[in-house]
């Protein structure tokens, strides 16, 4: 009975990964309707920007994979809140700084770095740095620093649309709050799934496999974005 439960749970996880995978084509940047809205929009639009921010996060598999890596071995609520807050602080800073000062980074390069952040976290979750370099890099600093890169990614995507300068910060704030709402919503589901899985021994026996897959997913994103960079720029 226990074995069946484990099997069905693993099956569920694999299905989830496949589903995530299938959304790959649509998830880079924004979809066609959003694109049209952003291009045509003038002035302050709090509701739409909240929604676009939230949707970007919920459908942004790169951000979600990184968060999954971050909270994979976080067991108590305080730790989760601390690390997620650091991530939020990081990406909010660069999102605002990037858009307001018009600093733009190539979208492919920044997404490639976001891919690497996932590889980093997967390797970290295997204890790789301690084993290979006999040194554990500060995990909180890492989350903050990678948060900064994720924020630059968000900023770059918004800047592609040449947003109207007037009252820009209002739209930006709405987008940012939307991102946090989306992140919170997505985290609830990830945590729920993780907490159920942690009740089974398979969480521990599969943690190596899961983090290997996480590294692999990060490498795929990295390769995908680098190929885009080389071909399109």
């Amino acid at each position, binding site marked *: 009975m226990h074995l069946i439960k484990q099997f069905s749970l693993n099956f569920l996880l694999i299905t989830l990964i496949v589903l995530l995978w299938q959304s790959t084509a649509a998830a880079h940047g924004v979809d*066609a309707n959003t694109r049209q809205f952003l291009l045509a929009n003038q002035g302050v639009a709090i509701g739409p920007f909240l929604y676009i921010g939230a949707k970007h996060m919920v459908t942004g598999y790169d951000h979600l994979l990184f968060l999954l890596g971050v909270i994979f071995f976080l067991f108590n609520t305080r730790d989760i809140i601390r690390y997620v807050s650091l991530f939020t602080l990081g990406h909010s800073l660069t999102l605002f700084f990037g858009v307001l000062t018009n600093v733009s980074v190539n979208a492919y390069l920044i997404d490639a770095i976001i891919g690497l952040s996932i*590889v980093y976290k997967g390797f970290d979750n*295997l204890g*790789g740095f301690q084993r290979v370099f006999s040194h554990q890099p500060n995990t909180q600093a890492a989350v903050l620093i990678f948060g900064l890169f994720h924020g630059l990614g968000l900023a770059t995507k918004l800047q592609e649309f040449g947003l109207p300068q007037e009252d820009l910060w209002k739209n930006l704030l709405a987008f940012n709050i939307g991102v946090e709402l989306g992140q919170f919503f997505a985290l609830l589901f990830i945590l729920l799934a993780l907490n159920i899985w942690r009740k089974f021994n398979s969480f521990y026996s599969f943690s190596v496999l899961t983090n290997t897959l996480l*590294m*692999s997913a990060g490498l*795929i994103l990295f390769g*995908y974005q680098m190929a885009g960079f080389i071909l399109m720029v």
Partner: protein
Amino acid sequence: MQMKKTNPPVQSLKVLIISSISAVLLAFFVLIAIVGPAEYAIDPTGIGKALGLTVLAKPVENISKAVVTCPAGDLTSHWQDVVMITLPANSELEYKFYIQEQEEMTYAWSSEGAALYFDFHGEPAGNTTGYFKSYQEATDSQAKGTLLAPFSGVHGWYWKNENLKPVTVTLKTKGKYRIKGLI
């Protein structure tokens, strides 16, 4: 089962090497066989073609609807909004505005000579029956005027391009409205 681990378990060097190599190999395989063909039409193994993935990478720019806002220049200075909407050959689309009852919208659009069938119409807000009121229905390459909205709701144009070439409509508007955009 250990419930209160705060640090991730440190795996042995052997496990680390195996898992790192597996991650790289899996990523490489997925990139070469699936992502490359589907995203960029790069398909060295032929697996992408066998799976029918390469069709995804064909450029779709020329058949997609496009809308671009114009920079405000001298010509556009007395208009509030100017959009250029591209209708691919043999296609149709709608561009709409939210307008309140008794509010006015002044408009002028032109397709630079290419004849388009169009229906300028409005749908009352909250109406689910599919009812719409037509203001102007014709085949022409331009139209202008002022709409006094008979009811609150969504008002705008349906255009149909039956030409063999894409047609770009430049639509200029001013008045009291909110852009809904392409439908």
